[in-house]
């Protein structure tokens, strides 16, 4: 049996959320949801785990901080020490107070940009790519659930009947 994609189109985020709860209760697995804005409370319903992108950002930030400190140690302490107003600069620790601003800025720079790049790559959204949303109106005022027959024990007709119990606007089936 080939995998069929069933798209249930709704015109309201609240109706979609409640309908999703209803069909998930009946044991249906929802593959994805497309919406013009984030629907709060949807992630646990369709079984999405929390993203780890914040952890990645922390790691990028720490890399930035270490790079900045290593760089400044090399430039100002190791390679070419300069006596500036007799201020202590014999070791990194001596000179550290003056290095705080740049360390912080560079940490933020690396965290923000690293996270943004990770975000683009994980979403697979890069300059010039084509949109992969099933219907153009999902970026305006339509909310669409995508259900695959392969993910579920129930067949196409069963899922459609279940969806039809809710206030769905339209059900569309696409063969691969």
């Amino acid at each position: 049996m080939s995998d069929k994609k069933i798209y249930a189109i709704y015109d309201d985020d609240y109706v979609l959320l409640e309908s999703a709860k209803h069909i998930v209760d009946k044991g249906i697995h929802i593959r994805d949801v497309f919406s013009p804005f984030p629907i709060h409370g949807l992630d646990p319903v369709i079984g999405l785990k929390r993203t780890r992108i914040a952890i990645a950002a922390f790691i990028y930030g720490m890399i930035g901080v270490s790079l900045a400190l290593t760089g400044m140690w090399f430039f100002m302490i190791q390679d070419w020490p300069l006596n500036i107003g007799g201020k202590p600069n014999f070791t990194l620790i001596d000179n550290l107070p003056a290095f705080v601003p740049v360390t912080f800025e560079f940490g933020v720079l690396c965290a923000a940009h690293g996270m943004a790049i990770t975000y683009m790559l994980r979403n697979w959204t890069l300059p010039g790519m084509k949109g992969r949303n099933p219907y153009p109106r999902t970026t305006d005022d339509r909310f669409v659930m995508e259900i695959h027959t392969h993910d579920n024990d129930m067949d196409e007709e069963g899922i459609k009947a279940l969806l039809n119990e809710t206030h769905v606007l339209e059900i569309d089936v696409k063969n691969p």
Partner: protein
Amino acid sequence: MHKEASIREPLVLGTPTYSDITNEVLHTIENKPTKLWKLLITIAAIISLWGVGCILYLLGVGIGTWGLNKSVGWAWDITNFVWWVGIGHAGTLISAVLLLFRQKWRMAINRPAEAMTIFAVFMAGMFPMIHMGRIWMAYWVLPIPNQFGSLWVNFNSPLLWDVFAISTYLSVSLVFWYIGLIPDFATIRDRATRPVQKLMYGLMAFGWTGNAKAWQRFEEVSLVLAGLATPLVFSVHSIVSMDFATSVIPGWHTTIFPPYFVAGAVFSGFAMVQTLMIIVRKVMHLEKYVTIKHIEYMNLVIIVTGSIVGVAYLTELFISYYSGVEYESYAFINRFSGPYWWSYWAMMTCNVVSPHLFWVKKWRTNLTFTFIMSIVVNIGMWFERFVIIVTSIHRDYLPSSWSMFYPTWVDIGVFMGTLGIFSVFYLLFLKYFPVLAFNEVKTILKSSGEQYKNMSDEEFKKLHPVMKK
């Protein structure tokens, strides 16, 4: 459903549907530019051409064409730099700090305010660059391996911290702004009928799909970027203030500078947001989304930050007397009674007295009054930087080197030019970019929209039935 207290005023007026919001915000993008827009951008372009001409002349001839002299080595250039950076603080404050505080009224104004931030920081960054005189050597501020005996930049200097602060601020704000723009560009892409438009917005939308995982990441990224941008905002203007505070010039050498500059920056930034938004909401018919309540909230921020600035002025005045340091007290006596007394009192009137008029509710909810006040605050904050910079250095320890600063036509031309260039960028933004983060506004429609706000759960369920009978 998350409900708000009924006493709170709605943030979206009327009864727009989701597609109404899209249509209304995208109206300017999807239609031909109006006559007013063409007129404004022509005027702005002429002014910016004049500014570019002045800058080129300056680069060709040297900064001797400015009115600087041996005592006043910093004047309009650094005044304009700090003024523009200050204006650039409201955008990130609105989008980051208000996001962390879960202030929903930020949704309607974060996009135009962030655009203002980015363009203002562009303008700000230009002044130190042209002040270098030989702008083609500007890369010397970066720690790049070189042939000068491998000489590095001085990481102990606040001027170098500034390089890192401003460039980090600009690029992080740009990333924050663009990540928010992607879903909105996708909406335009999916609606576009003209091929060029479809292609351009398609390129800029990066193939955004708006699936659940993407939105989950979007929200997490926004939150973390807000968490990073908040200390960034405070650090940037603190570092700008250290350009002055770490020197040993009487009038500059004060520990109060970092918080005082940050408050001043937020103060002037919000004033500029008011100046722009009061016009934009009217011309682009966005009164439903940028309501009087939004204007009032911003005026409240202006009262708070204006009061902090006022306290800071009085504190530094008092400390200059209380410290018993002769030079320090002279710097301040000279400020309010010397040859630049008029700029000091202009600053005091505009920044300390005028924001307190906003305590009157009738005035702070009046658009005309707010608009005039926002201009007054902008002028006041320009004078603040002028007072700090010029009056502190025009009289130094030797009376023989006392002098005055007189701006030349190049000084004035460059400043006017940045206003023009800023306006060109802003007008292009208004025409070609989604002015409001309309997809985010949709998320607050049900909790803060006028039509939903005080609806009971029964009424709501009747309006949005989930199960068919």
